Every structure is written in C-alpha cells, then in structure tokens.
C-alpha cells in the first residue's frame, strides 16, 4: 500500500467503497509502525490487539452502512490524553505506569465513531518543550532528517503522521505544541479556538491555554476531526456553548476579496530569512488568488514570551502539584516523612525542564512577586486580545511564520532554556488570545526541511482558516520525508 499523503478523506472513500477493510487498513498501519517506528520513535505505546478489535467493530459498522466520518480511521493519540485502560504517561517517569480509569471526552467522541487507536504518542514531558527531547522515554526524530528534532511538544504526533504511521493524530497545543511540530515535520496541524474542544481528560499543563487538536496530512482532514471533537462538554465548565458550524463549510470557496493581515513584528529580527521568504511567497500566492494582504502591527508581541511563560508556568506549577506519589504514579522509596517523601518523589519523577517550569511558575505566584509578574502577564493577556480584536475588525485572517526556523538539530541548543523559550515567539500569542490557528507547509529550507506558515482566525472561525489552508494546499507540492 502506498501510504504517502494518504488523507482521511481518501481513506473514508476506500473504506466506504470496500476497496480496503478497516482491519486490513489497521494491519497495514501496524506493519508500517513496526517497520518505521524503531527509527522515528514516535510511539510510547502501540495498541496492536485493541486496534485490531476496534477495526473489526468499525468494519461491522461500515458493513451495516452506518459509518460515521471517522469510522475505521486509524489514529495516533498524544500520550497526555487519557485513554481508559491504556497507559497515559505524559512522557514522564512520574506517570510511567498510570492507567486512567476514565476516557477523555475527545476519546469518548472519537470512539463513539469507532475509530481505531493505533497507540499513544511521544511528547515533551508534560507537554513542556518544543523538541520532544524532554520525553523520559525516547527521542523522537524528524522524518525528514533523523539528526533533527520533530518539534514539540506534540512531536510524536507530527512525526507519526509525517512518516505515514497514522493518517491522523491528536495533539495538544499550549503555546504552539501542535503547530510548531506540524511545521517541522511538514504536515498540517490545527489549534482550535480555546473552549471549543473539551479538555476533560487532557492532562493539564496550562489550563487557560491548553487545547486539543488534530495533526493530519491536510487542512480538510483537520476539519473532519475538528467537527468530530468540538462542542460543549458537561465535564468541562470552560467549554463554550457557542454553536459550532461545519468547519468544512467554506472549503473550495474562492478566497478572492478576503483580507489577510500580515503583522510586521512577525517578520523582524530573529526569524530566518528562508522562513520569511517562504511565508511571504505564500501571501503572494493568496494575492494571486484574489485575496488582499494588509500590513498590520502587534506592538505587544515583544512581551508575548514573558506573558506566556509566566501564565503557563504559574498554572503548571499548580497543576503539577498533585503528583506526590500518593494517589498514582511514581512514588520514591525509603522515606518515612511525608514532606521528604513527596519531595523525593517529585525530584526523581520530574525531568529538568518540568522542574524549571515549576520553579518559574512558583516564582511568578510567590508572595512579593505576584504583582510584578503574574498580574502584569494577565494585563498583557488583555492587551494582546485587544490588538487581535482590532486587527480582525479589518481583516479576515492573519498569516505568520509558525516557527522562526526549520527543525533544529539535537545538538543545537536544546539544553539552553532561554533560546528554546524565545523560539516560541510566533505561536504563543494565539494561545494567549484563545484564537484558532492552522499551520500548513509552505516551503522547504535549503537543507530540505519543511517550513510552515500559520493562518490565524477569529474566535470560532475554524471554517475560514481551514478554507484558506486548503486553498493553498491544493497547489502546493509536498516533498516526502526520507524516513
């Protein structure tokens, strides 16, 4: 079977027309995983037996003529999404053996359509990082070059789709964790509007920023998945009651007349020239389709990194306090004092980056520092939202680079936290503002590594950014990865 660029849309047609059965499809992907994943290392857990069982169930449903849009479609799931009865580790020693007794709402919804879960995917520990290299278990590599990172934190999800070990995967995005690895691995990733997809069962990193979304081979596929996972959830009081229209409703419509905001601060120092050129070229391509580019300004961008890191780390420091070895997960040995036990557990169970964020977050909230840091970060959150609102009064979407560079090497400063933090500049404002954004490949660097552009939309306007990304993807020739 030729897996390259096989989309969910194609597979749906093949399954429905009985060109292939769901078990055959699942077996093919499982074989592909056993062949490729020893090189890519994108899976933490492969669920061979249960995947085949699910495929059988899916086939029953297809045969009965009751297939839903995702029935029988193989999925990879990021390992911070709780899967009932299947280990959910967050790529941390702390949760190495944690088996949730409940299903995340997104899994509930997908399983309701009888998808096939191939396995759980690698990530940065507790989703903190942009390289997947902070995983406790393995270093996932970039399918375009095994000396380079797949990006992160959803690096396993992006690499797995990029290397065609699954046609689609779920990731999560707190500050770029879907878009940046999608960009690095040459695939499409959608970060939905905050509150549109339930976070119930997503192991929290930063609750006010986290969103689950798809990584796939096309914007269209992202739309199919988004349609299936979005909506109000009684288990998540922050989900919106906003009615979600069909995210695919604008597909194929002309983009002529649409206004594209191009914020100049996203094309200044710190962004590689080849990235700038590639994204500008994409904007030109839209103009050729009749869209209009408008240069805009986002003055608060210079504070985006501190605002993002202060808010996300503060929330993380609190969210991760529950890992104490008592209720679940790793528990240190040989301590007979409560405080010593939990300190040793946390010291041994968490990796370096997680500890760094906990310390930063604790600092941001500590008495005497709150006003100087956390309060100002909340103030800037409001400012950044205002700036987006003003831009979206005039424009329909915004186009920016997804990352300042193409995927970097494992030897290029992964251990330098400051450099890593600053590299999130292109993605974090979207999370702060709670807006939807999609990253799609728009070119390749001199070294052949993919370049991604991000299309940012108004809140709940997923249909528009999917339409835009799809319009570009129709004429864009993707280069296959080497692995």
């Amino acid at each position, binding site marked *: 079977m030729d897996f390259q660029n096989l989309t969910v849309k194609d597979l749906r047609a093949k399954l429905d027309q009985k060109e292939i059965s769901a078990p055959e499809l699942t077996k093919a992907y499982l074989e592909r995983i056993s062949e490729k994943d020893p090189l890519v290392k994108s899976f933490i857990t492969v669920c061979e037996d249960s995947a085949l069982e699910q495929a059988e169930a899916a086939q029953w449903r297809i045969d009965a003529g009751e297939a839903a849009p995702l029935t029988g479609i193989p999925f990879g799931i990021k390992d911070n999404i709780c899967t009932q009865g299947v280990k959910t580790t967050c790529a941390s020693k702390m949760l190495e*053996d*944690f*088996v949730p*007794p409940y299903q995340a709402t997104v899994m509930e919804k997908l399983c309701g359509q009888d998808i096939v879960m191939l396995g759980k995917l690698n990530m940065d520990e507790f989703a903190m990082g942009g390289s997947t290299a902070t995983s406790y278990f393995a270093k996932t590599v970039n399918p375009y070059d095994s000396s380079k990172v797949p990006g992160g934190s959803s690096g396993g999800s992006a690499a797995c789709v990029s290397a065609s070990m699954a046609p689609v995967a779920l990731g999560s995005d707190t500050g770029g964790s879907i878009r940046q690895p999608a960009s690095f691995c040459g695939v499409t990733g959608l970060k939905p509007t905050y509150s549109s997809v339930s976070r119930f069962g997503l192991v929290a990193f930063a609750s006010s920023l986290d969103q689950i979304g798809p990584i796939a081979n096309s914007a269209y596929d992202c739309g199919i998945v988004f349609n299936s996972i979005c909506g109000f959830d*009684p288990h998540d*009081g922050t989900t919106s*009651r906003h009615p979600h229209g069909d995210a695919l409703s604008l597909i194929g419509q002309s983009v002529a007349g649409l206004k594209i905001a191009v914020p100049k601060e996203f094309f200044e120092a710190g962004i590689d020239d080849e990235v700038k050129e590639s994204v500008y070229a994409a904007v030109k391509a839209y103009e050729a389709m009749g869209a209009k580019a408008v240069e805009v300004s986002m003055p608060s961008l*210079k*504070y985006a*990194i*501190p*605002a993002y*890191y*202060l808010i996300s780390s503060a929330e993380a*420091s609190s969210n991760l*306090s529950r890992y*104490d*070895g*008592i*209720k*679940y997960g790793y*528990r240190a040995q040989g*301590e*007979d*004092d*409560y*405080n*010593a*036990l*939990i*300190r*040793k557990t*946390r*010291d041994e169970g*968490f990796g*370096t980056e997680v*500890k*760094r964020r*906990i*310390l*930063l977050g*604790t*600092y*941001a909230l*500590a008495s005497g520092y709150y006003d*100087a*840091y956390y*309060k*100002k*970060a*909340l*103030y*800037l*959150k*409001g400012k950044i*939202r205002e700036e987006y609102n003003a831009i979206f009064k005039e424009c329909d979407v915004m186009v920016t680079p997804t990352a300042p560079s193409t995927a970097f090497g494992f030897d290029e400063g992964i251990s330098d*936290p*400051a450099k890593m*933090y*600053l590299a999130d500049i292109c993605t974090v404002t979207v999370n702060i503002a709670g807006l939807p954004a999609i990253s799609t490949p728009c070119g390749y660097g001199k070294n052949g590594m993919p370049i991604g552009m991000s299309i940012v939309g108004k809140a709940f306007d997923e249909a528009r950014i999917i339409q835009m990304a799809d319009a570009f993807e129709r004429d864009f020739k993707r280069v296959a990865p080497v692995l």
Partner: protein
Amino acid sequence: MGDVKLIQHLCNLSKLTLTDEELESFTSDMEVIIGIMDSIKEVSVEGDIHRDSGVYFADVRGDESAPSYPTDQILENAKEKEDNYFEVPKVF
C-alpha cells in the same frame, strides 16, 4: 535575583529537592529566564486586568448526584494503600 536562596525558597514552596549540582545549574538557568521575564516589568498597568467574561448562573451545572467510582478503581493506581485508604507517612 537568581540567587541560590531564592531557588531554595521556591523549592520549599513547590516541594522539590535539588542536588547541589542541580541547584547550581538551576540558579544560573533561572537567572537567564527571569531576565527574559523581567522585560514585563517596564509595562505599566493602565486600566483593567484581564478577566474572563464567565458564565451565567443559569448555565451552571444542576445539583444532581451520580454514583461514585468503585473504591478499588480510585485506589488502583496508588502504590501504598491500607484498608481502602491511601497511605502516607504520618503527618500531624
């Protein structure tokens, strides 16, 4: 800012214990990171701090209880348990 004492204080608050080596590297890392964060200090707060708009009282979950989880599922992932309790070293 990024002094050892501060890091130790933060470790106390967040229940982390660092080795001497870690303490040293974290102290220097944190100095750089806090340096990045400090650019926010030049921002003066004018007007309101951002607050979420929230929900209406009428949309808040109704008070209906449902069966709890079986006790063994709640305790299933715990390393130390005793007589259906979670067990910890004695606290006062």
